[in-house]
């Protein structure tokens, strides 16, 4: 059985989180450039230029792209034939988060007891961890720093099956519309359709991990993505909400079977400060 040391996990998580916070990924830069070329609003174009300049400054000086370096969300695809040695897997991840936020001069934004004593944990732990067991002997780690300006705009609707495709589109567009300038547009719209309530929300978040603008491989879902994107960009919100043609860089939809009585739809928005990285050990 293949073995890896838990400290490898710690180091990987720490590196992935820091990289994500300083260096805007190529797909996002390309999408921002395209948005700039297509945008007609001078105010929105001005914002897009500054976002590209911001990415350059962050990359050059290793200073976080955004001061909200988020809550860490870690996705694991753990091969069932892999054996971890030298410590607890989840503790290794939390240690990676601790290290990234301390050594990387990232902001610690996590508080305990959300509804009462909102005391900062001072090391940005705990991370939210989602694990899937898969065949094989590898461990794939995806680390996301999720800012809460956009996270706070998340919504879930348990639609009736009668609402259908149109109901899904209307709900998603309404969410982006109501969010307005708050989630730092241009955004990436993550949509989950199906499953149970919690599965649906997880799908919406996983949808954000796709390369920006890559359509879903299923053509029916890809068409839905394009239809929602059109409608979202008709809202006129524009970069930072100053008015413009480009409100979303992309819409990503993930789908899962659901119950005969249900049509769950979840929306999870990702601001332009897209910070996720993956590695396979």
């Amino acid at each position, binding site marked *: 059985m293949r073995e890896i040391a838990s400290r490898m996990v710690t180091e990987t998580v720490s590196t992935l989180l820091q990289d994500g916070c300083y260096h805007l990924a190529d797909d996002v830069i390309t999408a921002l450039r395209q948005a700039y070329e297509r945008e007609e609003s001078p105010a929105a174009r001005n914002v897009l230029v500054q976002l590209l300049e911001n990415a350059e400054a962050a990359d050059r000086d290793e*200073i976080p792209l955004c001061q909200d*370096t988020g809550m860490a969300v870690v996705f694991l695809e753990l091969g069932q034939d892999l054996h971890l040695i030298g410590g607890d897997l989840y503790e290794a991840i939390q240690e990676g988060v601790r290290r990234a936020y301390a050594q990387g001069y990232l902001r610690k934004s996590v508080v305990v007891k959300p509804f009462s004593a909102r005391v900062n944990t001072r090391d940005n732990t705990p991370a939210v961890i989602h694990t899937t067991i898969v065949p094989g002997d590898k461990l794939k780690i995806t680390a996301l720093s999720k800012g809460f300006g956009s996270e706070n705009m998340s919504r879930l609707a348990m639609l009736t099956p009668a609402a259908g495709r149109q109901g899904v589109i209307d709900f998603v567009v309404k969410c982006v519309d109501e969010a307005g*300038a*708050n989630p*730092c547009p241009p955004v990436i719209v993550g949509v989950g359709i199906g499953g149970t309530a919690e599965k649906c929300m997880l799908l919406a978040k996983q949808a954000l991990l796709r390369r920006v603008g890559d359509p879903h491989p299923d053509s029916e879902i890809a068409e839905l*993505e394009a239809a929602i994107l059109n409608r979202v960009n008709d*809202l*006129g919100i524009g970069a930072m909400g100053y008015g413009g043609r480009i409100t979303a860089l992309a819409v990503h939809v993930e789908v899962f079977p659901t119950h005969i009585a249900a049509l769950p739809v979840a929306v999870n928005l990702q601001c332009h400060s897209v910070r996720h990285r993956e590695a396979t050990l």
Partner: protein
Amino acid sequence: MKTISMIPRSVQLPLSEDVVETLHAGDGLLLTGVMYVGRDAAHKRMIETLEAGEKLPVDLKGQVIYFMGPTPARPGKIIGSAGPTSSYRMDAYSPRLMAEGLKGMIGKGMRSREVKEAIRQYKAVYLGAIGGAGALLSSCIRKVEVVAYDDLGAEALRRIVVQDFPVTVVNDIYGGDLYEEGQSQYRSTPTGRESGRSPCGPPRRPISPRHPPRI
């Protein structure tokens, strides 16, 4: 809506009422001078202080407050990434601070009706900075000191000196609102906010086959 000038105007801080009167939604400004920095927790404490009948740790008359909580500074730097946070979370507190003489707020995102009314009543201004441009905005900050609530860490009340700090006027004393005006210019959704649409309406446009074209 008047056309937005892409050439920003330089404005000195703190703000006088005369200057506030010249600001209109959509104006680009470059701010130079002193401003305060505080977000949720610092606002909560300031309001608790006022409610207890005590004095604020700083005099807010004519001042501007920036809703921001920076990342820690690297050694040799004075501050880390320093972009705005969402302003609506300060809506419950802002009118009270404007009553104390606060003249300007810098943040991102929409404000409540109460805040917009207080902006008119107290002759103040709400300015938008670019959310997620913390690395760029950080380079406009020349000096930083914590002036109160040190225990709040990233949320402590700070006084900073900025040079040519770029902002856009969002809400002015005349009721101007950049979000409403800017968005209505580019909105091609038929009636009001999307939420007002019939859920069964047909899609408005033919479906385009692909996402934004890739370069």
